[in-house]
């Protein structure tokens, strides 16, 4: 079955290449991607990085007509979006939809309509971040994304400037069995700053989305990057965020995902310049029979960089979650400070979390701390809430909610924070599958 998917994927890539007058900019990217994809082993249980996540749902797409999707109703779309005071750019099934979008400010353009200056930026950066990783570790679906790239979005922030408003990139997958590809390139030149929010939503349909974002945060530049994977549970999403941080660059990243048929998101974040810093929070929720899989890989290639990573998840029902956090500290990367924490609430006996910190440290003068735990609700907090009249049932709900909401509360943008909080609240109000029943408070009774 895997071969069939691979063959069809490559055929599609070839068709696109010959059909359109494809920009020569993309030719080498596509070629390299197709080659890598063709050579890659199809994910399976024996594949270390796919051990716990099944790509079986992709089987549905082998026979499907990989047609383009239908455009959604603008009003219906509106109800799912919550980020305000931002430049909204909507992609439907991988295609830019101008009617649903704001005007693109200067520096932002589609690959297909890039001017000479933008083409230069694309040529200099596209595929370079993904390509900077050890070939053995390159991701199969990142390769497929490259092979399929026929357009994409460039966000370019010139030297010492900042984007007036955050970019709010909305990626919708609309119709059944649609297959879409999205490629984003974010380049911040020296001293630039920007905020980019990627929000993935979908109709309640099976669709396959492959979305890859490449980021270069230049010297002393600052990027706040948020990726919201809030699609329906029928979706198969594979995605990645690959970033290179240059000297004194700062990346503040936030990721949140709810499980689905397949949801696999890889973060490959490379410290390439001294003094770069990364602050990365993530949240995942999985219930019913969903699966969700975050693989993060932080490479410290040079000295004096810091990375802080906090991931929290709640897994219930028969769902399965994976957090694989890799920290790779190169031999030269002395004085690195790297921290990683992953805490999980398991709310049923049939839920599964596979958490795996992977540390590879070749430098001898570094500080590196990590912790991965299955945790329980705080008994003292439960008692405190109950001592104010809150029922133990509601107290558990509030504490389970708070367990992940804590990470949301530190988001800087109010509409984003509130919107996500409402989204989260809705998840909790649908059923109790995300509520931990551990640590049940006993009633104190008088003894004999």
């Amino acid at each position, binding site marked *: 079955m895997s071969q069939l998917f691979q063959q069809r994927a490559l055929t599609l890539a070839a068709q696109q290449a010959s059909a359109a007058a494809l920009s020569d900019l993309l030719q080498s990217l596509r070629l390299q991607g197709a080659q890598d994809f063709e050579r890659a082993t199809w994910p399976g249980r024996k594949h270390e990085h796919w051990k716990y996540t099944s790509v079986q749902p992709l089987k549905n797409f082998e026979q499907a007509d990989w047609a383009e999707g239908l455009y959604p109703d603008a009003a219906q779309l509106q109800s799912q979006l919550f980020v305000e005071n931002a430049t909204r750019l909507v992609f439907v099934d991988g295609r830019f939809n101008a009617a649903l979008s704001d005007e693109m400010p200067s520096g932002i353009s589609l690959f297909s309509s890039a001017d000479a200056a933008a083409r230069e930026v694309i040529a200099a950066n596209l595929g370079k971040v993904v390509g900077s990783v050890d070939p053995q570790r390159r991701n199969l679906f990142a390769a497929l994304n490259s092979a399929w790239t026929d357009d994409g979005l460039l966000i370019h922030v010139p030297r010492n400037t900042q984007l007036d408003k955050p970019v709010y990139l909305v990626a919708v997958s609309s119709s059944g069995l649609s297959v879409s590809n999205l490629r984003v390139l974010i380049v911040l030149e020296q001293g630039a700053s920007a905020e980019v929010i990627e929000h993935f939503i979908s109709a309640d349909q099976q669709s396959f989305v492959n979305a890859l974002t490449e980021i270069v945060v230049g010297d002393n530049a600052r990027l706040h990057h948020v990726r919201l994977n809030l699609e329906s549970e029928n979706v198969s999403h594979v995605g990645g965020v690959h970033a290179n941080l240059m000297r004194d660059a700062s990346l503040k990243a936030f990721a949140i995902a709810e499980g689905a048929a397949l949801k696999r998101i890889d973060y490959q974040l490379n410290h390439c310049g001294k003094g770069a810093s990364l602050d990365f929070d993530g949240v995942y929720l999985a219930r019913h029979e969903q699966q969700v899989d975050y693989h993060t890989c932080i490479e410290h290639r040079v000295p004096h960089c810091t990375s802080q990573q906090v991931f929290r998840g709640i897994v219930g029902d028969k769902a399965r979650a994976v957090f694989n956090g890799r920290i790779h500290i190169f031999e030269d990367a002395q004085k690195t400070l790297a921290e990683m924490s992953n805490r999980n609430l398991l709310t049923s006996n049939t839920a599964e979390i596979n958490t795996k910190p992977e540390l590879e440290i070749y430098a001898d003068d570094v500080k590196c701390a990590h912790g991965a735990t299955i945790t329980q609700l*705080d*008994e*003292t*907090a439960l*008692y*405190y*809430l*109950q*001592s*104010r*009249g*809150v*029922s*133990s049932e*509601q107290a558990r709900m*509030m*504490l389970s*909610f*708070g*367990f*992940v*909401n*804590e*990470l*949301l*509360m530190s988001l800087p943008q109010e509409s984003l924070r509130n919107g996500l909080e409402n989204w989260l609240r809705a998840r909790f109000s649908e059923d109790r599958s995300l509520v931990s029943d551990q640590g049940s*408070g*006993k*009633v*104190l*009774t*008088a*003894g*004999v």
Partner: protein
Amino acid sequence: MLEIRELFAKVEGKQILNGLSLNIGPGEVHAIMGPNGSGKSTLGNVLTGREGYEVLSGDVKFKGKDLFELDVEERAREGLFLAFQYPVEIPGVSNMEFLKASVDARRKHLGLPELSSFDFMKLARETTQKVNLDPAFLKRGVNEGFSGGEKKRNEILQMMLLEPSLCILDETDSGLDIDALQVVAAGVNAMRSADRSFIVVTHYQRLLDYIVPDYVHVLAGGKIVRTGDKELAKELEARGYGWLEQEGV
């Protein structure tokens, strides 16, 4: 209001309360003082029903009901309130949400309609001013990153919103500077009424200058060994607890 009769209780295998008896009438303010380890905090935890605090014998009637028949939350809804010595931080749960859930539960129990979010917000904001707390604290996680004094004022804020029948203040004065102490005391005094009682647990007579008690009890070895009026507190401040222990009472 509260009748405690011959109460024995243990925590972590250690017997702490040894036949404690105490009657508190409506509108009365009782101070409980005593050396470290005498059972002052245990009393509050036993009365609210904290897990791990095991009642061995004795009974407690709260407004005529058998207290030990009630869950932790039922006791609270009946109007029992403990201002914690160490208020708990709950990151991720906003103070506002916490307060509203508490007040909703109490009002529901009393057969009153839930306050709308708007009305509650208004009430909560007004009350923060009474305890000299910045309304911005309502949006933060419960007690998260609050200073010691802010946490104690947040306890008083909860007390004012919940309008309990019996308030137990467990060393609410510890760690407070004089300004915060006055704010807390003013909050308590404003709440004093003919049908609301207080148990003020403290180490220091200082608080009792501001919250003047009707009775002062000395708790030692897990029971009340001496009862007096506010003059007793002054005597304790001057002489310590040693003389009581020597008298062997």
